């Protein structure tokens, strides 16, 4: 960095970025309900996602109740069990994880972190939330239609998804599900446009792409991926809706049901699988990339150390984003595909482990010789690293065709994806909520409750999912409500299942504690300092804390440095904020 730049930077007008005309709320309704403020929309997204996530949690309890203690609850019929499995999976993947990371954190963090007043298209942003809300309502309504919600499994594979043998298949359940997905995707597209364009156009002066916090990089790349991947689910949903309602045969082969030939014929169920997984695999990274980004920021801030290998981190995010579009068929090894395809997709699957591993090394190296504060966000971040490594390693096994074929559709797969894209991203979500709660509310979350929440969740998830790998290895298939009499399954599996269920109940209750903490701390939490974690990024540098409508008061911030200036030798404090011009002029030069 040459001195000329530093000198030039002293008298830079703050806002060469055209200041946007802000929308001003006129009534309670436009301020809190139909709000166009990204921060309010973020809270609405997160709140709705948490509410529907609670439904998913209860469903998982019911599933574990059936698996751990079969016959204890007689209202859990086989049909009901299928419905629980389906809706639990669908909610967690689409309506909770995607919505919280992109709709929640994306809306809250993007404008604040890039130094903008709001999203570029606030009105469309508001519509985005209300479409999401409608999608959630449709999903909930499907519980109350005749026949109940669909029980087709979260992958909704045809032909079974729309046949009468599957719960909700001949009723309205599957129709509501598909409609809900279509509405969700339309809503997401509106939000995604905002996230992408705001990162590209809304950045404050001096905020180059290579000065973006990794959180923004993760959310940005995931949004781009989601914009390209969700249309595949949209196409699949529309075509299945045609098959179900209008009698076309896009996915439906010639079928005989209850001795009667159906009018379908000639369709290809494999085509659905291609379309579904063309969305489904990028979806894994749509959830993972924001988690990667956010955890990088949490680790750096709470270890008071620059992120290790920032450039590599950015390249890895972009690389993962690109590669994730050419691995989809590794979910279809057992669909009878051409062996050369399997070879190709196994290879790409293993290649994608390279940038992912780079990220893991960099997180660990960020911690190395850092000043690690074991705050709750840090605890969750550490838990994320180990959980993600655990889940990722079994992913390498399953990515190989020869290993996947015997393990396909066993509890091993269930354990794998719960570790890697269930528990791991949730760890980041929790860590991020503990980290940014003071920024949203101006108060800290209760630490003692937080520690309980963390330890029960962390240890508990391992008690749930570690034994589940073994259950899968013995050969217990997934989606079976009861083990029945199978010669190859030892009796001890039932004991293990009961144990897993007890752990699952405990982890679930820890989440209730967390929700209690979030609600009570609104009023009773310790008042937060202005920048309680002494972080460098812009969202902590707003004139008002918590940031008000418009974020920046009269003048937009000017960005002078990258977001990871922690423990800079010679600096007055152990962090230098991004909008801090720093000591003038020479002392700042690092080599």
């Amino acid at each position: 960095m040459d001195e000329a730049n530093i000198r030039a930077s002293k008298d830079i007008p703050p806002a060469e970025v055209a200041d946007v005309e802000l929308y001003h709320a006129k009534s309670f309704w436009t301020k809190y309900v139909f709000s166009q403020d990204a921060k309010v929309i973020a809270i609405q997204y997160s709140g709705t996602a948490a509410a529907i996530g609670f439904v998913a949690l209860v469903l998982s309890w019911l599933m574990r109740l059936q698996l751990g203690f079969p016959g204890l609850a007689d209202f859990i019929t086989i049909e009901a069990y299928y419905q629980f499995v389906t809706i639990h999976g669908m909610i967690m993947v689409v309506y909770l994880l995607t919505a919280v990371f992109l709709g929640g954190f994306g809306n809250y963090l993007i404008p604040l972190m890039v130094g903008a007043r709001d999203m570029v298209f606030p009105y469309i942003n508001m519509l985005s939330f209300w479409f999401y809300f409608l999608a959630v309502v449709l999903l909930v309504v499907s519980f109350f239609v005749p026949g109940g919600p669909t029980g087709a499994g979260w992958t909704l594979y045809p032909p079974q998804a729309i046949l009468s043998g599957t719960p909700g298949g001949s009723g309205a359940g599957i129709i509501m599900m598909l409609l809900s997905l279509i509405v969700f995707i339309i809503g997401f597209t509106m939000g995604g446009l905002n996230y992408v364009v705001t990162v590209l156009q809304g950045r404050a002066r001096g905020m180059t792409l290579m000065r973006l916090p990794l959180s923004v990089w993760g959310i940005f790349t995931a949004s781009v991926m989601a914009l390209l991947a969700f249309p595949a689910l949209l196409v699949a949903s529309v075509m299945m809706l045609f098959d179900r309602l209008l009698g076309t045969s896009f996915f439906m082969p010639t079928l005989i049901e209850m001795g009667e030939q159906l009018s379908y014929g000639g369709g290809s169920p494999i085509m659905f699988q291609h379309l579904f997984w063309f969305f489904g695999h990028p979806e894994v990274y749509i959830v993972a990339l924001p988690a990667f980004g956010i955890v990088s920021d949490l680790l750096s801030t709470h270890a008071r150390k620059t992120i290790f290998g920032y450039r590599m981190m950015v390249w890895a995010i972009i690389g993962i984003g690109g590669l994730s579009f050419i691995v989809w068929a590794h979910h279809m090894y057992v669909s009878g595909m051409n062996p050369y395809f399997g070879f190709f997709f196994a290879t790409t699957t293993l290649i994608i482990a390279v940038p992912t591993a780079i990220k893991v090394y960099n997180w660990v190296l960020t911690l190395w010789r850092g000043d690690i504060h074991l705050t709750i966000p840090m605890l969750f971040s550490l838990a994320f690293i180990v959980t993600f490594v655990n889940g990722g390693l079994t992913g390498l096994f399953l990515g190989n065709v020869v290993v996947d074929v015997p393990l396909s559709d066993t509890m091993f797969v269930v354990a794998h994806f719960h570790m890697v894209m269930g528990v791991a991203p949730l760890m980041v979500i929790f860590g991020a909520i503990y980290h940014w709660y003071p920024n949203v509310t101006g108060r800290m979350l209760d630490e003692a409750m937080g520690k309980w929440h963390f330890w029960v969740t962390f240890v508990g998830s391992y008690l749930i999912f570690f034994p589940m790998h073994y259950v899968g290895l013995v050969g217990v298939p997934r989606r079976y409500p009861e083990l029945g009499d199978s010669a190859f399954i030892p009796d001890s599996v039932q004991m293990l299942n009961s144990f897993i269920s007890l752990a699952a109940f405990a982890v679930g209750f820890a989440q209730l504690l967390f929700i209690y903490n979030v609600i009570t701390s609104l009023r009773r939490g310790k008042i937060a300092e202005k920048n309680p974690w002494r972080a460098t990024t812009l969202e902590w540098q707003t004139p008002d804390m918590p940031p008000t409508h418009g974020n920046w008061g009269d003048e937009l911030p000017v960005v002078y440095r990258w977001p990871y200036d922690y423990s800079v030798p010679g600096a007055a404090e152990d962090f230098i904020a991004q909008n801090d011009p720093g000591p003038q002029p020479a002392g700042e030069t690092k080599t």
Partner: protein
Amino acid sequence: MIIVLLFLLVVAVIAGRWLSRQGLMSQPWLEVGVGDITEGRDRTALSGAKLGLFVFLAVVGGFFALLVSGYVMRMGYPDWRNTPMPPLLWVNSALLVMGSVLLHNALLSARKGDRATTRLALAVAGVAAFGFLAGQLVVWQQLTDAGLGLTANPANSFFYMLTGIHGLHIVGGLVAWGRTTLAVFGDHPVEQQVTRIELSALYWHFLLFVWALLMVVMLGWADDLVNMCNQLLR
């Protein structure tokens, strides 16, 4: 899925070209200040609205690429019979071309401040769009009357779905057209509406392009190419 992968390749090339100018090789930890760094590669030169439209068009493009991917995958099956294309489709296509030309014309005259021509061009473009939609409905009617309904053959199912979804996008475009036209018929100087007209025109050109590709695929002009791809994948 070849089609959608080709589409993604195009998107990746554009994104890659853009990223290559964003200083991904820079060393942000060494660079302090706002001087040089902001120039050139700071933000893209497009306005927010235009960039938003381009991103949206990429999404719509991906959507249609996936639909055509499905079409092409299904074509490989023996029971496939291409839908006979009623001649009226050529009239409809001409209307769509006309709309595109007129909107471009409206844009040019709005830039010059020629209010009367802008109004006329916009209004006739809208009529052409409604004509296109009506024509498509008549085509549906003709096909159904000929016994080629939605479920008669997989090709027909695709024909109705593709034309229907394309039509829905035209309807969406008409909403934007309506807002633009209302604004142009208002009192403000027509120059203020240039961005709006430009965005409408861009969207129209894009839908015309999509329609042209759909026609090529549905007429069977691309059959040889498709068969070649399907052979490769078998």
